[in-house]
């Protein structure tokens, strides 16, 4: 297409010849012609080099004894010492277990609920009610994590909280929710659904809106019920999006909600609320054990990456949509 454009103006548009003969000088010419694009890209490149790749380079301190004087590069190597120490520490089982618990519980509840909500909202007939439901359900996503946890503390307060007032009204004993290890996981997961289900629903609604309405009309003519249409048209229609979001959720399985876990921690629930990343925070930033906690962080990242690769492969085998 670009060949139709005369090169007379001195700034011809794109690749001049579609031939494979990309000689070096031709390539350099194309690169120099696009210099303004590279200038536009430069701030973003500088950003990822400094704030993403530099820390990535620094990950080597997981195998070193980091000290500020020698920095990332010159600190002495110690091999797998920090990993071994972590695996052998008494926190290892607890911290990894806690992380998996809330990750899996979260996935089981927080992943399907937005899909169900989207299917239900999608079949509403009144556009107004549809829009209203959407707005209300996703409004909590705009409340900050700090405030959501703040709400938990006041609403679940054993002295004056709404929930405990209701329990006492029903004749029960007040429960100190935020100070109990058993309650941490349910509260964590339920509040996650409360805050994010509505927002996650939006993507599925967008996917549902893209389904050809003719399919539904044809099914209606054939006498399909609503439930059948959801089962045989809507669900298959959003399956690619579901698969991709599921793989992404798996890839982030061990990262989610670390800020909330940190905020919800009290000395009384620490036995269930200390997850890998809060442990990294405590050991690394509060106790300045940089190398040790970097090793734990790396362990977490690698575990995540492995999960992502495994599930992406499974999805490909099953002929589903994949990330790559």
């Amino acid at each position, binding site marked *: 297409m670009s060949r139709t454009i005369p090169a007379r103006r001195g700034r011809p548009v794109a690749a001049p010849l579609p031939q494979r003969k990309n000689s070096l000088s031709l390539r350099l010419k194309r690169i120099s012609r696009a210099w303004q694009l590279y200038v536009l890209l430069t701030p973003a490149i500088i950003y*990822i080099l400094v704030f993403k790749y530099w*820390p990535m380079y620094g990950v080597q301190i997981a195998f070193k004894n980091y000290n500020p004087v020698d920095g990332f590069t010159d600190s002495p190597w110690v091999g797998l010492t920090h990993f071994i120490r972590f695996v052998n520490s008494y926190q290892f089982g607890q911290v990894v277990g806690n992380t998996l618990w809330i990750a899996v519980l979260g996935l089981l509840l927080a992943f399907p609920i937005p899909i169900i909500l989207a299917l239900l909202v999608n079949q509403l*007939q009144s556009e107004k009610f549809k829009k209203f439901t959407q707005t209300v359900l*996703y409004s909590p996503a705009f409340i900050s*994590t700090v405030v959501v946890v703040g*709400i938990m503390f006041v609403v679940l307060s054993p002295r004056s909280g709404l929930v405990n007032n209701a329990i006492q009204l029903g004749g029960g004993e007040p429960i100190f929710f935020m100070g109990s290890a058993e309650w941490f996981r349910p509260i964590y997961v339920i509040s996650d659904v409360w805050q994010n289900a509505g927002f996650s629903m939006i993507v599925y609604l967008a996917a549902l809106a*893209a389904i050809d309405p003719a399919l539904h009309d044809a099914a209606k003519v054939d006498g399909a019920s609503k439930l059948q249409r959801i089962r045989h048209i809507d669900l298959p229609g959003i399956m690619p999006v579901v698969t991709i979001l599921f793989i992404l959720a798996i890839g982030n399985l061990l990262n989610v909600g670390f800020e909330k876990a940190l905020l919800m921690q009290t000395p009384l629930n620490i036995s269930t609320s200390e997850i890998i990343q809060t442990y990294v925070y405590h050991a690394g930033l509060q106790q300045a054990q940089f190398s040790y906690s970097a090793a734990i962080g790396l362990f977490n990242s690698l575990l995540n990456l492995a999960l992502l690769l495994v599930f992406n492969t499974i999805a490909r085998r099953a002929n589903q949509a994949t990330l790559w």
Partner: protein
Amino acid sequence: MSLTTNPRTTDTPSRTINQGRPQRTLRDKYGDRAFSIAATAVLMLSILAVVYPLYFIVIASISDPNAVYEGKVWLFPSGMTTEGYERIFADSRIWNGLGNTVIYTVLGTAVSVSTILCGAYALSRKDMPGRKILMLLFVITMFFDGGLITKYLVVRDLGMLDTVWAVVLPGAVGVWNLIIARSFFEHTIPNELREAAQMDGATDFKFFFKMVLPLSKPLIMLMIMIHVVAQWNSFFDALIFLNDDSKYPLQLVLRNILIQSDVSSTGTTGGDIESYAAAQRIAELTKYAMIVVSSLPLMIALPFMQKHFTKGAMIGAVK
């Protein structure tokens, strides 16, 4: 959307086709109706579950703390008081935090949005040599991350601890947002337009600033909103990078008052129990008011923002 051919149904002649009510026919079995009712009921309950806690906090924030304490406040405020709000407005920490948050939000949004728009546009240009490799450079960071500790050490080595930049820069460019912006440019800026502009002698800069940006208002709005909300609500970068509490953003101030104070007061202290309890109740009242005040700005802006976020989800879904 149902393609109703007959705009009027027999039993409800006043409804027009625009309201989307399909005609009730024999096909519409009892099962369907039961399903609709069940679905609506489930959604109503979900709405209630979302709204009621928020509503309760609003009424508790203007109720007599003793009434809240005794569990008398359920549907309506009781014994109206504005003491909670008065205490907040008299609290200099809140004002200071709010001021910091405004600065961080404005600066952070400006840096993020301009970096993302420029970068995403360059990456959307298929004729930029090395585009694939450069894109890969960004995508890799989505799947592997250097981790909290090394990020902290880098920020420290850059001498940014306890400065505005530590809050604004480390999270400035989200790759996901970059991808959204890139696919927006790919789908909405036709190649022909660029070629025509270039024939007229427009450089890439000129084309980007004079043509692309004015055509990308929905994207710009979306990006601004994403970053305003994220920056307004963030506390973690401030928690790890700032020591000086006069620089704390609102969320960190809130955390210290809403959450930390609760933790420290879980045990009963000695002394005058009556006045301690009274102080406790006032503190609770202040917390309710604080939740309302800090969430209100975004909640008010929500209906205005909704349209843009929904559009953003569409762009994201297209991928």
